[in-house]
């Protein structure tokens, strides 16, 4: 950003919505969007509802941030089910030595686990580790492609959370609260910043791995924010966005004509009754028409060159994490603000083959390794990695103990849910490359240095996007809510 842009930013800051909001104490947060009907002209100032009015006809309009952002957009790869950090990034040779020994009581006292009962045994790392790149980052042999990219990545190794069941932990990670009803991080970001492309949704969600994450669609819901900010799920089968395609037999030209006529009549209606909401509706129909072209175009990866398909491991028309990674890049290129991917199936308890470290977990690694590495390289070669923040991680970690559901040894090997320690990585968007931040103890049970809580991570993401997590607020039920509730510290040390 040059000086000139900076000046524009500073000026714009004076007039941002949040600035406006800060002055408002009206019930709905004073947020005034042209398309919030009825309440569209909410007031500002005192609690007198008829005071000053604002006119924002486009809720997804790109808005300036609180300060100069390092990242303009986010691609968040959420590994639903929580991958084991001990088999991927957090190398613990000491744990190998303890393999098969009973867990000392001191690690169990006063702890609640989802499934571990009685005295479990310690479980050493199940895969080989090596150091890679200039940074010497430890990565296991499960991620051969990713290990070539470690110098672009910042690892947060002492992450911790408050929840050890999937649904609440995913909610905490994605909405800042383990309870339902709060807006997701993507909703907050698009509410605060809008989006740079008006022909595509500003907050797009992809799901792979066969099913929606445990917490359901609430993790990309808009909570108490207007529904316009909820994530739009793009699907790889059927309509990419629900109801996007016209009924069979209707051509593009005929749909255009239909919308023209609808808008013509609506314009006549506006002449007669003068309700500005009609003009908003006209523009929404125009936008719907544009989306009908731009979404399928963006979602159709068949026009990508062969080398790109080989790089990601994509196959047009298939539903896969790989396809979703490539789609994420295409959306990022087009200026979509927040792109959220969920890949389901990481829950490696050892209770059956699918949920075990040697089978299901192994398969997941193969599914994500090549595409996520390709995504980093592809963003980099296009110059997009500088202002695109990529985040990878699950909702919690796994125990250094082997899970013994019902107090018995299980046929397969696996680990229980663990809230005290897990690893996530971030890349691009103003994050220091080649960094390993935070440490866990010698068995990877507890963070001992530079621990980062979920709320800290959220504060950092917003910070990189140029927003102060304490100032991005929305008034609901009489008080200001924010993504990080009353918590969160920006992790300054990982910022470039």
């Amino acid at each position, binding site marked *: 950003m040059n000086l000139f842009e900076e000046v524009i930013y500073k000026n714009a800051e004076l007039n941002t919505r949040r600035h406006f909001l800060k002055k408002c104490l009206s*019930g709905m947060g004073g947020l005034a969007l042209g398309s919030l009907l009825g*309440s569209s002209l909410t007031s500002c100032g005192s609690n007198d509802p008829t005071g000053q009015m604002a006119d924002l006809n486009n809720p997804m309009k790109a808005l300036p941030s609180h300060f100069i952002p390092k990242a303009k957009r986010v691609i968040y790869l959420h590994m639903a089910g929580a991958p084991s950090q001990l088999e991927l990034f957090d190398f613990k040779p000491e744990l190998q030595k303890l393999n098969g020994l009973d867990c000392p009581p001191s690690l169990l006292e006063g702890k609640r686990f989802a499934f571990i009962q009685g005295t479990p045994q310690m479980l050493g790392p199940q895969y080989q580790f090596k150091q890679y790149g200039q940074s010497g980052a430890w990565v296991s042999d499960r991620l051969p492609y990713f290990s070539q990219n470690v110098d672009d990545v910042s690892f947060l190794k002492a992450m911790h959370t408050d929840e050890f069941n999937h649904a609440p932990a995913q909610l905490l990670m994605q909405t800042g609260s383990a309870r339902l009803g709060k807006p997701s991080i993507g909703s907050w970001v698009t509410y605060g910043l809008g989006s740079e492309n008006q022909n595509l949704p500003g907050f797009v969600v992809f799901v792979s791995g066969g099913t929606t994450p445990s917490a359901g669609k609430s993790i990309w819901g808009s909570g108490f924010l207007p529904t316009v900010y909820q994530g739009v799920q793009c699907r790889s089968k059927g309509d990419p966005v629900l109801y996007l395609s016209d009924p069979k037999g209707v051509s593009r030209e005929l749909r255009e004509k239909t919308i023209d006529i609808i808008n013509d009549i609506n314009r006549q209606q506006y002449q007669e009754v003068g309700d500005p909401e009609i003009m908003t509706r006209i523009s929404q129909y125009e936008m*719907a028409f544009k989306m009908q072209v731009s979404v399928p175009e963006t979602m159709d990866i068949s026009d990508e060159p062969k080398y790109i398909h080989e790089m990601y491991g994509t196959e047009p028309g298939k539903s896969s994490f790989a396809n979703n990674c490539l789609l994420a890049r295409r959306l990022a290129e087009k200026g979509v603000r927040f792109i959220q991917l969920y890949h389901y199936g990481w829950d490696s308890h050892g209770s059956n083959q699918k949920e075990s470290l040697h089978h299901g977990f192994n398969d997941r690694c193969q599914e994500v390794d090549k595409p996520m590495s390709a995504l980093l390289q592809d963003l980099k070669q296009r110059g997009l990695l500088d202002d695109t923040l990529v985040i990878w991680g699950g909702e919690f970690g796994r125990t250094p103990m082997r899970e013994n559901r019902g107090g018995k040894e299980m046929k397969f090997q696996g680990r229980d849910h663990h809230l005290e320690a897990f690893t996530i990585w971030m890349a691009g968007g103003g994050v220091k490359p080649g960094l390993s931040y935070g440490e866990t103890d010698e068995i990877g049970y507890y963070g001992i240095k530079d621990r980062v809580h979920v709320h800290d991570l959220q504060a950092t993401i917003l910070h990189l996007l140029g927003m102060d997590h304490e100032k991005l607020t929305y008034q609901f039920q*009489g008080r200001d809510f924010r993504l990080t509730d009353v918590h969160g510290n920006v992790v300054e040390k990982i910022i470039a």
Partner: protein
Amino acid sequence: MINFKSFKRIIPFGFTGAMAILVLGLSCNDQEDEKVDFNAEVRPIINNKCISCHGGVKQSGKFSLLFESEALAATKSGEPAIVPGHADESEMIKRILHEDPEVRMPPEGPPLDPKEIDILKKWINQGAKWEDHWSFIPPTDKEIPEISESGWTDNPIDAFVLEKMEEKGLSPSPQAPAATLARRLSLDLTGLPPTPEMVKKLEESPELTTYEELVDELLASPQYGERWAAMWMDLARYADTKGYQKDRHRPMWKFRDWVIDAFNADMPFDQFTIEQIAGDLLPNPNKDQLIATGFHRNTMTNDESGTDDEEFRVAAVLDRVNTTWEVWQGITFACVQCHSHPYDPIKHEEFYEFYAFFNNTSDADTWTDSPTMPVYTKIEEQERANILHWIDSVKSASPKTNYQFAHQIEEKEAELKSIRPDPLPVMEELSADERRQTFVFERGNWMEHGKEVQPGVPGSMPKFSDTLPNNRLGLAKWIVSDDNPLTARVTVNRIWAQLFGRGIVETQEDFGSQGFEPTHPELLDWMAVNWMKEQHWQLKPLLKMMVMSATYRQSSELSKEALDKDAANYWLSRGPRVRLTAEQVRDQALAVSGLLSKKMFGPSVMPPQPDGVWQVINNPEKWIESKGDDKHRRGIYTYWRRTSPYPSMVSFDSPSREFCVNRRIRTNTPLQALVTMNDPVYVEAAQALALKMKAAGSTLDEQLKEGYELALFKQPKPQVLNSLKELYQTAYLHFEANGEGLENLGKQETDPSINALTMVANSILNLDGFITKD
């Protein structure tokens, strides 16, 4: 004139401060004697500038402005910060005026402006008298203003509205055209468009008496109950699944049916309240009263393995507390779970006293959702009654006959057993020896117990009468007692908002001090009192009064003057113009095309939904498309899965029903356009409407007019007709050239004229005038 008395007092505080006050004294002293209005003038300053550090959450310097007693009490320094009668001796004022920005209050942001300081000073000088927030003072019977405008004198609503309108320099709009009015009225009262006959009747004799007949007819129709129950479903957080990770099926539909019946029977709202909150505690409750308690069994149950049942039982009880406050009191109680209310006079401890009322039911987050009661559909009930009657009459005949019929009796009994009930979750109080103790949760954490508390209501609210039982039943009666300041206001406001698109208090969910002030406080109070006293808590007379008013009957056209002076129509100088709700958008399209099924009640149905929308972990339940008529039932009967609600309704702002929602925020998005253009349900409606158009006459003009009129109840203007014709012609040429024709829901239509009419119908069903109530 300089007030020398206060001048002398301020001398010790330093020159700068003195100068500031001197200036103030000069500018404002001439109003010294005017009484400061605490709620209108002082409270906003406190709430905006002071309360975040000196309120329910924080009490910096041990000074809080939440309660009078706290504000006047000694602070950390040992001295009170406010000395009534002596602003200049009050530390509060000294700190506000301090020249050192490090010491001056508020510590962040600009200093208070001179006008604000003046108000605070005058208020303290006048004795620092506290006043309850308006909504905590019970409504009194307000005098109806005298007005002279013809047609506006009969209905008290109009008198209040007109008075305000005139105050703002606005004048009322003429009455809406008969057809518009009939459509508005029918959509408001039944959620469905009127029949062409109703419109015709009113057009032919547009007198008030005809209109009144129409009002009575609509209020008496069974569809009335469905429309108002749809509103209640958001409040009751009704769903057909349990929520959380697994989100399995839960048969709650009998509760929904109870609500529809209650609205149709115009059950007085006090009884409606008591039965839902505490029907099980009534003496010898009947079946319906137990079904009513399903209201608070709409809380979620967590079936995920590894979860702590007590944690989620507590979550359900917390939800009952918050929902009760939000629905009946319009106060956001949830804040108080963790600390005293930041703005409203409710203490942390009081939250748990209220919680204690709900903490002794036997449900405990188990997968069976126990306790439940067996319920049957109305048809099944009838069948069972018939069989039982037959068996009884046979058995009561002679024993010989009994023997003769033994085989048949066996068969009938088997038939009876084959009618399987659904288990409806209900409320049940724990017995005396099983009762739980209730503790304050420190910082809202259910595992950190503070002191034990007993059931009680907040001290800032009316007393809980000694004659009431100290349980949920007593609580329900307290909520609907005449001296509860909030219940009637909140409910009347909610009904008003349903008709006018906005409440008199816009923040329907927040009547507390951070909510909006009412635009028409006297009207709200008058209606609240009148509703309790004269209308006996019944909604039908209340609704009738509202829709009979001239205010309601105004045209919604927006003049340039009104746009400039009151764009959002706060002062009601025109009729409401509001986008329809998610349910209404659907029901209306089905109704005008003739597809709508009028079948009422019973288990929820699954109309067409795109493949792959339901993908929930460890849950084999599938969306199995309903057959026949059930595809075209009203929106209120659509199966509601919390983690994946019916997508087209969510696009139109339906909440997920995971928790109580008091007010849907209406949005206007491209996704809505995609629904009404392309969702097969709407395409099917367009096809059905096209067939009606085709049958209406042999000329294109006749056909197009028919379609427009069936949907909008008026003739298209020539220009509109031309537009529709243009579309028809383009579409016709397209379908003629493209032999394949239009396909929807597996059906192929090859007649180009029907296909072209379908495209016209599709555009009519997307017009602003159609999606909007005007």
